[in-house]
Structures are given as C-alpha cells and as structure tokens.
C-alpha cells in the first residue's frame, strides 16, 4: 500500500507506466460536471529502491559474474561430480553478500544522518537474513550433508551468525581480571552452547587458578569437555562407532550430574546440565541462545549428534514451539527457516519472495538450486518455469536502471522460454542518449540476430540525425538499417545540397560507401556522381566522361538531374583535347533531346527548370558544344584510323 499525497476523497488517481516507475496524478474520470480541483501534481512512484543503492550495485555486479559462471559450468560433467563446484559457487554468492553487508555496516555506523543510518541499518538486517537463509539452504540442499556431518555444518552455521560471543570474549579477556568480569560466565556458557569446547576450557583455566580449593572440580569439568567426541567425516571412524563413543561420554556426564560432582559450583553445574542436554537448562539461557534455531542446533549437539536430514523437521518444529512459547505468531524469517528444515524448497522460495522487497535473492538461489537439479525432483512440471519466472523478474528490474541493464542481458540470455522476447521488448526502450550508447545497444541486438530491433534502432537514429540536419550520420544510420526509402530520401537531400552549394558534405562517408551504395538507386547515383567529381578533380577526364555518360544511359541518374549532368559535361566538351568520342557525343545529344522533348510535352515537370530563359540558353550552349565536339571527334577519329 502506498499513499499518494494530495489525492482527495471522491477523485480518481490517473497513472502512466514508465520504464522503472509509474506516474500518478489526481484526476476525475466522470465527464459530467468535472470541475478542476487544486492539485496539478504528478508523482513519480518507484518500485525498487535497492537498484539505486550504490553499495548494492556491487552485489548486482559481482553476483552477475558468478551467475554467468554457473550457467557455463561443465555440462559434460555428471551431476554427482558437480557438487563441490555448486557448493563453492554458493559460497561465492554468500561472500559477495557478506562484503556488501560489511560495507553497508560501515556506512551505517559512520553516517551522521539518522535517517541514512537507519536506512543502511535496515539493508544490513535484510542482507543478514538473506545470508542466514542462503547458508542454511547451502547446508541442507546443496551440500546435502549426511547424518554426522550435518550437525557439524549446522554448528558452523550458528557460529557464523552468532558472532557476538567473540566480541564479548575479547572484552572479557582484555579486562584486568577476566575471571571476575561480569560477563565471564556468559562467555563460557556461550562457548559451550556453540560447541566451542576448546575455547571454553581455556576460559575455565582462568577461573580454576583463582580457586585452588575447587581445583579438582575444574579438573573434572575440563576432562569432560576435552573428552566430548566430535564426528570426523574424513576419518576412519564409522557413524555407529562414533555414536557408541558419544553415548559413553554422555553417560559419564550424566553420572557426574547424579553424583552431584558440581553441586558446590552452580556455574559448573549449569555447564554440566547443558552437556547432558537438559532442555530446561537450555531454555533458561534463551538470552544467550537468542534464537530458536540456535537452541535447535545446541539441543541436537548434546542430545542427537547423529541426527539425519529427514528427522530435522521434527526437532525444528518442537524447538520453535518451545522457544517461542511467549509469542503466538512466528516471524516470516522463522517460517522460512522452518520450511528449509522441512526441506520444502518451494515454500522457502515462495516465502522469501513475499517477505523480501527485491528479486535478487530468490532469483539467484532458485537458479542455483535448479542447477543442482533440486527443483525438478521436487516438482517436475514447474521446475524450470519457476527459475525462469524469477530470473525474468529480476532482470526486468535491472533493465530499469541506466547502467545495470547491461547485466540483465545475460540473465535474459539464460532464460530459454521467454528470455528473448523479454530482451526484445526491453532493449528497444533503452534510451539512445548518445551515438555511443546506440552502438552499444545495437551490438547486443546484432549478436543475437534481433534484426527488427537493429532496424528500429538505426531508423530512430537516422530520423534523429535527419531532424538535426546531420545528413552524413543520417545516411550511415539508414544504411545500417537497410532502409532503402530513407536512404533515397537522404541521398536526395545530399543532391539538393550540392545543387544549392556546389559542394558535397560528408565526403568521407560518400567516398567509402562501397557495396552499401546498392541499397537504393538514388544512393547509387549519389555515390557514382561523387566518383565522377573525384575523377574529374584528378584530371582523369576520359574515365570521368565515360562515367558521366553511363549515369544517364544506364538510367542511374534521375531525370530531374540530367540537366545538371549535361552541364557538368560542358567543361569536358570545351577542353582542348577531344574527350567524348563521336559515339559518346551522339549519346549525349540523344540524352539532351530526350530531356528537352520531355520537358516540352510535360511542362512544369519537376527539375531545376524554373527560369525558362536561362534553361533555353543552357540548352543552346549545350547543343553548340556538343556539335563542335562531334565535329572534332569525327576529325580526330578519322585521322587516327588513317
């Protein structure tokens, strides 16, 4: 729900879709008696602010690299061998999230503006939650650790996301007398809760030295802690062997508790109760556990270290209920984690889509899970569609940004069903602010054989150049667009320009037309006519004369331009040496007669014949020159033959 300021009751909200926003304004659609009210304001409502965050940009950029790498991961490898690669890709994604989080955190802390700090702080909490969920999905779905290793991974997961113990420990250890610090026991217990027993023992030594009388009791606790078995997935020990060993240890701890070995020290007794997995004691330390999932992992550690993936959901549900007893409704994050523990991937993705305000997370996670073939096994029919649906949404969001859109292209490329049409629809709307940007967009379209978009972009650019009277640019864009009609139109303008000013602009372009010249007749003529000027300028009169004649006889030149061409022939006719042969001169005369007869039969035809007197003089001059040239040519040709 978004409130728009200034729309009063009884009026309507008008709107218009923009590329990355929607414009909203107050209006009244009922035509009858519509009397204008007072707010002629238009509000630009944006959907996704994350895209404009400079720090999150890095997240988008770097995850794009990982995404592209994932798409090209050895298709030849059997999927079993890809698991380590998928896990490492998952870790890469997470480290990008972490890096962003750290940067945001720094900005949030250093910011002096409260609003900004809150905003960044909010983003940090979102990223934290995202990373927490991602990490759990990695453990459960991608790495899919079996019983034994599963708990170890979950412990790592909890330790990573409950790192405030370390800071507290540092504080305690840096104090003058750590053992007497008010947080001392909290730190010890926290260590135990996370299964960090080595660190707990080191802390306990400090207390033991202070209490020589209780030395044996501390010694006993130290032994219990040091003897607690942890499963070693790389070792030779089987899970059953480990289980037997762990049970022995557990019985030993239990015995100590029954013996009241620690009765005289309530702290050590608490630790002993934790080691034995006493639920009430654990729940008394809610403040140290702080979350139900920490509680879950601790409980598994000390009660069910060989928990199987399939049993997780049972413990998760019960831990959630036990931990949250005071609160009736679980938060979205709770439901998402619970769904993960239940191995309900679709529910995780669905809940994340609803709870989060951007598509980055669901799109990338779903894509990765899809590559792991996890979605297919769950739901064969919708698997690839879900991945594509989310990627399309994410990429469409990127496309609204003035530079991030380039990343989106790769995402669309990897959506087999609708990727291409989406790209076609989006890319033609990228603003072509500069020629450089237009070329960039064009290259992307050309690489993908998107011929209609290529044509349209060139056409737009050609039109824009023409409107701004940049004929050269307009011509080269319309050649790229293979737009014959437009090329004709622009060639016409070039020729008009020439007639008016006697010189050509954009010589470079016209001189290097090459085969592009064949796009339109008029363009061919423009190119050839310019070639004639070049030959003439280089004093290659014979070639120039031949070309000039062929422009008319081969009907390349438009009729309206013949008079100009014939006039161009005048200086060639008047040179000392004979350039036009007798045959050529005959042909020139024929052209002139054709032109004049045409003009008399159809008066007012187009062409530069406004002033009849000048035209008549010109024709007379031409006739004279042609006749003289014919005479000289006949004499010359006769002489050579003789």
């Amino acid at each position, binding site marked *: *729900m*978004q*409130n*728009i*300021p*200034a729309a009063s*009751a009884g009026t309507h*909200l*008008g*709107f*218009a*879709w923009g590329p990355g*926003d*929607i*414009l909203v304004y*107050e209006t009244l*659609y009922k035509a009858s008696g*519509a009397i*204008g*009210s*007072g707010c*002629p*304001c*238009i*509000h630009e*409502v*944006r*959907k*996704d*602010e994350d895209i404009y965050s400079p720090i999150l940009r890095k997240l988008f950029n770097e995850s794009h690299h990982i995404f592209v790498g994932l798409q090209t991961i050895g298709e030849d490898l059997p999927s079993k061998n890809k698991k380590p690669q998928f896990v490492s890709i998952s870790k890469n994604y997470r480290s990008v999230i972490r890096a962003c*989080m750290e940067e945001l955190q720094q900005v949030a802390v250093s910011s002096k503006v409260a609003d900004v700090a809150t905003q960044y702080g*909010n983003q*940090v909490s*979102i990223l934290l*939650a995202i990373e*927490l969920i991602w990490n759990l999905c990695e453990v459960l779905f991608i790495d899919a650790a079996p019983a034994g290793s599963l708990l170890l991974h979950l412990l790592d997961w909890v330790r990573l*996301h409950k*790192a*405030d113990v370390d*800071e507290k420990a540092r504080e305690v250890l840096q104090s003058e007398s750590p053992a007497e610090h008010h947080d001392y026991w909290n730190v010890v217990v926290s260590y135990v809760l996370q299964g960090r027993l080595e660190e707990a023992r080191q802390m306990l030594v400090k207390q033991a030295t202070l209490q020589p009388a209780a030395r044996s009791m501390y010694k006993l606790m130290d032994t219990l802690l040091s003897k607690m078995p942890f499963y070693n997935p790389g070792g030779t020990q089987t899970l059953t062997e480990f289980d037997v060993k762990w049970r022995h240890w557990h019985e030993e701890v239990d015995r100590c508790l029954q013996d009241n070995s620690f009765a005289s020290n309530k702290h050590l007794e608490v630790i002993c109760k934790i080691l034995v997995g006493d639920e009430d004691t654990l729940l008394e330390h809610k403040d140290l556990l*702080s979350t139900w999932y920490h509680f879950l992992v601790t409980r598994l550690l000390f009660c069910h270290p060989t928990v199987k993936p399939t049993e997780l959901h049972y413990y998760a549900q019960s831990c959630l209920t036990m931990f949250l007893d005071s*609160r009736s*409704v679980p*938060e*979205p*994050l709770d439901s998402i984690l619970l769904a993960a523990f239940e191995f309900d991937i679709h529910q995780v993705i669905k809940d994340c*889509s*609803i*709870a989060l305000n951007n598509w980055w997370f*669901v799109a990338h996670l779903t894509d990765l899970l899809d590559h792991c073939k996890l979605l297919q096994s769950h739901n064969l029919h919708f698997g690839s569609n879900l991945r594509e*649906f989310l990627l*399309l*949404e994410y990429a469409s969001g990127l496309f609204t940004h003035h530079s991030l859109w380039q990343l989106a292209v790769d995402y669309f490329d990897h959506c087999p069903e609708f990727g291409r*049409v989406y790209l076609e*629809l*989006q890319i*033609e709307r990228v603003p072509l602010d500069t020629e450089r940007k237009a070329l960039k967009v064009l290259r992307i379209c050309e690489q993908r054989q998107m011929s209609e978009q290529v044509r349209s972009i060139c056409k737009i650019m050609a*039109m*824009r150049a023409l*409107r701004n009277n940049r004929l050269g640019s307009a011509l080269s864009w319309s050649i790229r667009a293979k737009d014959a009609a437009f090329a004709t139109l622009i060639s016409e303008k070039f020729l008009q320009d020439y007639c008016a000013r006697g010189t050509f602009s954009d010589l470079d372009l016209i001189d290097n037309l090459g085969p592009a010249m064949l796009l339109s007749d008029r363009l061919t003529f423009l190119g050839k006519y310019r070639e004639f000027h070049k030959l003439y300028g280089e004093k290659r009169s014979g070639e120039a004369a031949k070309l000039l004649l062929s422009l008319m006889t081969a009907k390349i030149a438009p009729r309206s331009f013949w008079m100009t061409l014939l006039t161009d022939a005048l200086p060639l006719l008047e040179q000392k040496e004979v350039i036009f042969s007798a045959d050529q001169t005959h042909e020139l005369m024929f052209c002139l007669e054709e032109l004049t007869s045409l003009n008399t039969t159809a008066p007012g035809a187009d062409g530069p014949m406004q002033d009849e007197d000048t035209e008549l003089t010109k024709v007379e001059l031409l006739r004279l020159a042609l006749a003289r040239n014919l005479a000289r040519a006949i004499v010359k040709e006769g002489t050579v033959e003789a």
Partner: protein
Amino acid sequence: MFVARSIAADHKDLIHDVSYDFHGRRMATCSSDQSVKVWDKSENGEWHCTASWKTHSGSVWRVTWAHPEFGQVLASCSFDRTAAVWEEIVGESNDKQRGLSHWIKRTTLVDSRTSVTDVKFAPKHMGLMLTTCSADGVVRIYEAPDVMNLSQWSLQHEISCKLSCSCISWNPSSSRAHPPMFAVGSDDSNVTYGGKVQIYEYNENTRKYAKAETLMTVTDAVHDIAFAPNLGRSFHVLAIATKDVRIFKLVPMRKESTSTGPTKFEVQIVAQFDNHNSQVWRVSWNITSTLLASSGDDGCVRLWKANYMDNWKCTGILKGDGSPLSGSSGQPTAMSTVVGSSVHTSQNALNGMSAGRVGKRAPFAPPVRQLTSSKIYQHSAYY
C-alpha cells in the same frame, strides 16, 4: 514502492492524461485547460517542462506519442470534436539552451461530429497510422503516406461501431503473425445493447476492417481497454476496465484455408477483480505485460500480477491519502513521511532478533527482530 519525486504540473485544470514516450525520457500531459505540456527528463532525473501550448478549444482527453522512428510526434484528442497531430521542430540553438522546444500543428482531423474520446497510433510496422474513436460511435483510421510530410493525412477507414466509443487499443503483435487488429470499447451503459467490446481485424482481400468478435459477456459500460504485448504466444490478452477489471484471453481458432472471413476467437476469461468496488476507469500494461495497473472509483491504482502458474493477484495499491497539498510545491512535505512508512513496512518483514538490541550492533550480530509482526501490503516480489 515509494514516491521518488513530485512534479508540479502547473496545469490550470484537471489533468486527463499523462503519456510517456517510447524510451521513457519524455512525457506529455493534457488537461481540461485545453493545453498540452511536454516534459523532458534531465540527467539527474528531474523533469523540466520544455513546451506548453494551447492545443484545442475544449478539454483535451488523451495525448499519445508516435514511435520515435517517425520522429518526435504527438497526437491529442479533445471534447472540441477534433484530433490533432503535433511535431517538434528543431529550433534555434538558443532555444535549446533555454530548455525550450517548439511544437507545431501538422494537421487537425475534423471528421468527427462529437467529442473525440481516444486517439492511438497503430503499431509501427503498419506505417504512420493514427486511430481515433468518438462518442458518435465511429472509429477512424488515418494514414500519413509520407512520413516527412505530416501535414498530409488521409482517412483510410471509417468503421461504424453503432455504440458510443470510449476507448481503442491496437494489438501490438507483429504483422507476420497476425493481421492488424484492434479492440474498441463503448461506455454506453444500456446493458440491453449487448457486448461493449468489439474486436476488428484487417482483411487483406477486401482491404477493410471487419468485426471479428464481440465480447458478449461485457455488457456494462467500458471505459478503457488494453491489449498486452504479445510474448510470442499464440493467443492475445486483453484487459478491460468496466464495472470491474477483467482480463480476457483470445485464442484464434483454426481457420479453413479457403475461408476469407475474419479470424474467430475462443474467448476465455482469465481473471476478474471487483476490488475497486465500482467503476474502473483505466487499465494499462507495463512493458513486458507482467503487471497490469487499474484505476477505479475507490480512488486507488491497483497493480495486478500473475505468478508463474498464471494465477492473478493484487500485488500493490496506490492510494490517495486524502491530504491535498497546495498546488505549487514541487517537493511536498508529506513525501518524507510517506517514504519512511513504506520502506518500513516492506523491510521490517525480515528483520530478526530481539528488539532491545538495535542501538549498538556488533559486526554481524544476529538480525534485529521486530516483535510486532508488521503487515506487508506491498508484495513487490510476489511469487
């Protein structure tokens, strides 16, 4: 969602239409004050009015841009019974420096005897063609044969729809796949007159538009209509604003190769929403037709979205907060509070952990949990 900025439109009366150009860098507004304004977006995203001129002698209902392949061209239609075509001319360079542009009227289309209620350019592959519809029930299709000379428009088709027309929409599908097709809606409220949405299709042989279909189930007044961009699908999707929002699928039925008549369609209703409670006035698709927006008598703009299994849901609501601001301010004071609250509702959703510890956050302390479960109105990432 949040209000990024507000623009003081400075029209002296109701705004009736706002229209983005193809690339989203310009917009045009039209109003009961009989004028059209053109706005350009600067590098930093601010909107500047670069032209404002009186266009008609009545309320201007709609304004629309031609495809940029045809240059910078606008069309408007009005209560004054006319439609007009405007072209921007590249003016003196000092005008550009002052951030002004010149628009000149290329033509006035005066064929209608009643208010011209809608004006739309046809898809660009058909050339530069303009369609109008009017309260007298006639759809007119004009063509500019020479795109360099926009003062010449010829009336190519005149199609009588029998009912007062309120809106038209071209099917944006390419010519290769389908013959040109448009839908026209009528705001005649007499339900006994039957279907209020008609579909017309161009016939190559007769060179005329013929009625292909009437949506018989839509009997109430129709105020707006919009074909969705075709995503390479074999069917067409049409959104209709009537007493509710409706989305129809038009599936072309297999045609006898010898048949020369218009395509017949199987009409399926995909979704129907009465959340606006009463009349719906506008419907419009985003670029990729993943979102439909509608505006209704409840004073809201609602956003509709289908998930990947084609289930449609409301995914966002824009609502006036009933606190009119004094007209001139470009930066309404209400903005910050509105932004604040919306950011919170969407972001608190995933905040974790105990509420008391927000103040000092250790590096990567557990996420801060809000104990109240905040409601998410806006599922921007709807699945």
